[in-house]
């Protein structure tokens, strides 16, 4: 058994631990044997089992799905743009999603997740294309700095408009406000189930193109001579990123920095092979988001700090470490 498989097994075990923590820890601590009984014992009347089944379980599922979707989306963006600073949050993709959802909720009066899901995807797709197009104008091609700045600028514009809309019509946006906070609390199953197929498709796409992405890492010309279809791969990657980032944003709100950190950790563990990076991101992303969510529940008891806020606090120092590195841009 290779080292990579062992590492992946350890990561899966770690994931199991964080899942257990996510179900057991909160403003009401529940012992693990009670959790077990609530899940499999059938004693469904106690308060504990209601908390576990209706609140903690969907919340954990959302954290897992959003975490893996964001991490894989980050791995794809970093590979396609050859930019180590790429992250769906930093590049404004999640802001595009949030903006489209705000339009759907505020202007068109759509309030169900099934309804605004499409807007989340559309917003993510448009934002990805716009940022990439603006970021890659110019002779020297896509520069990491320009791409990052474009994303930040677009994100600032869109979130400025969204917060103005929220402020203008507090009642109409009550649902939006909870969604936008980046908190995983109280979202329930209804918003989660319809998104799952899209995230699955996105992940499958990510695996399908990972071999071509390995070739693209060598440069477009060399990749083409190795038989990789550069243009098709890029397009598929953008579709996958939109599905994953849009889906994650639809169920969990805008969450930044998961997609930045996890691919770097994965690359540090398994080297530059995109196939393994995607596989590790699938497991490590949920660990991070679950851990962030649990930390957020503990630090402000009995209140909560949204998971998105915790990930930003952990992720931003990683960004600083990356730009301080000597060969920051050798991906």
């Amino acid at each position, binding site marked *: 058994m290779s080292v990579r498989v062992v590492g992946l097994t350890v990561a899966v075990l770690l994931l199991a631990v964080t899942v257990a923590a996510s179900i057991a820890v909160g403003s009401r601590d529940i012992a693990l044997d009670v959790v077990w009984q609530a899940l499999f014992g059938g004693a469904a009347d106690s308060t504990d089992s209601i908390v576990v089944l209706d609140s903690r379980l969907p919340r954990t599922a959302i954290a897992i799905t959003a975490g893996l979707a964001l991490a894989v989306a980050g791995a794809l963006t970093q590979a396609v743009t050859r930019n180590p*600073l790429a992250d769906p949050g*930093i590049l404004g993709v999640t802001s595009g999603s949030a903006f489209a959802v705000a339009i759907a909720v505020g202007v068109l009066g759509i309030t169900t997740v099934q309804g605004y899901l499409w807007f989340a995807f559309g917003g993510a797709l448009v934002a990805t294309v716009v940022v990439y197009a*603006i*970021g890659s*104008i*110019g*002779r*020297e091609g896509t*520069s990491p*700095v*320009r791409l*990052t*700045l*474009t994303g*930040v*600028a*677009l*994100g*600032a*514009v869109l*979130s*400025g*408009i969204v*917060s*103005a809309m929220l*402020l*203008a*019509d507090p009642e109409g946006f009550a649902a939006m406000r909870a969604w936008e906070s980046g908190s995983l609390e109280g979202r329930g199953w209804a918003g989660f189930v319809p998104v799952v197929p899209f995230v699955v498709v996105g992940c499958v796409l990510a695996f399908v193109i990972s071999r071509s992405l390995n070739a693209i890492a060598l440069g477009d010309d060399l990749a083409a001579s190795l038989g990789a279809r550069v243009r098709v791969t890029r397009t598929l990657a953008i579709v996958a990123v939109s599905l994953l980032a849009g889906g994650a944003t639809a169920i969990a709100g805008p969450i*930044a*920095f998961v997609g930045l950190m996890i691919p770097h950790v994965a690359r540090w563990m398994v080297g530059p092979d995109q196939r393994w990076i995607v596989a590790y991101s699938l497991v490590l992303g949920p660990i991070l988001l679950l851990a962030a969510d649990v930390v957020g529940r503990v*630090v*402000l008891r009995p*209140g*909560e*700090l*949204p998971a998105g*806020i*915790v990930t*930003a*606090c952990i*992720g*931003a*120092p990683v*960004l*600083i470490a990356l*730009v*301080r590195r000597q060969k920051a841009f050798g991906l």
Partner: protein
Amino acid sequence: MSAVAQRELVVCGALALAIVLLAVVALGTGDYPLSVVEVARAMFATDGGFDTTIVLEWRLPRVLVALVFGAALALSGAIFQSVTRNPLGSPDIIGFATGSYTGALIVLTLVGDSYVSTAVGAVGGGLVTAAVVYLLAYRRGMQGFRLIIVGIAVTAILHSVNTWLLLRAQVEVAMAASIWGAGSISLVGWDEALPAFAVLAVLAATVIVLARGMRQLELGDDAAKAHGLRVEPARLALLVVGVALIAVVTASSGPIAFVALAAPQIATRLTKSAGLPLVASALTGAFLLLAADFVAQHLLPSAVPVGMVTVVIGGLYLIGLLIGQARKPL
């Protein structure tokens, strides 16, 4: 007089004219509309009655605050951009405004709500943030892009801290703090405005004194040394004044983004000058903030804090700047 200086004079004149026109319109617009003639009469007549109350007591403070704060932000931005030699090296990009907000929030939640303590908190928070960003970005010299990315990262961290502080605070404190944090000049009356104006006037005078050194620094450290300038003290003095300018504004109004970023660049393009034109920058900043406040107050379906308007306009401007500069390395 050289062609460039002449152009600068013309641009400044045009900007001043535009500011006066916009100010008159702003003074006349509101729930109780007044014509240009009525505004003029209200301002200069001794017994203007209700019109005078509206114009002098209600609308004039807000217009003046927008103008003065806009000019101060623009000056601060010009100083930072000149010292970092980077059009993006403005205090709002490198995390200064968010740091001021953090400082103010800490003071608000621990000490309580008063103008002086908020101001001290905002200035302290801003200074510490600026220092931290600078130190983190410094590694065998300073690179523009590293400063900016570190600024973005530090902004993200502080944003988390701010949310945490707001969630911990009592509801009333959190409400007051988040209104302040959106960047609004609607709550600044004469009592808060006049002390801020006095401090800003002193700072602006200091900028005039330091401007000569700034011009020499723009030529590069070696050339500045050759002209007999003591480089590091001059740079430090400029930075302190730049920080103080934006801190005073932030303490009164909350963080107002992007005026400091955009105004000096727009002024440079208008005047086609080689360095950053200080007077034209200040006038552009004044015009920008007054225009943004007019949009925030009157043109949107419901009034929003001016900070939200400037962030949208400024972000669009930054995107435009990136497209325009595509052929030049940043």
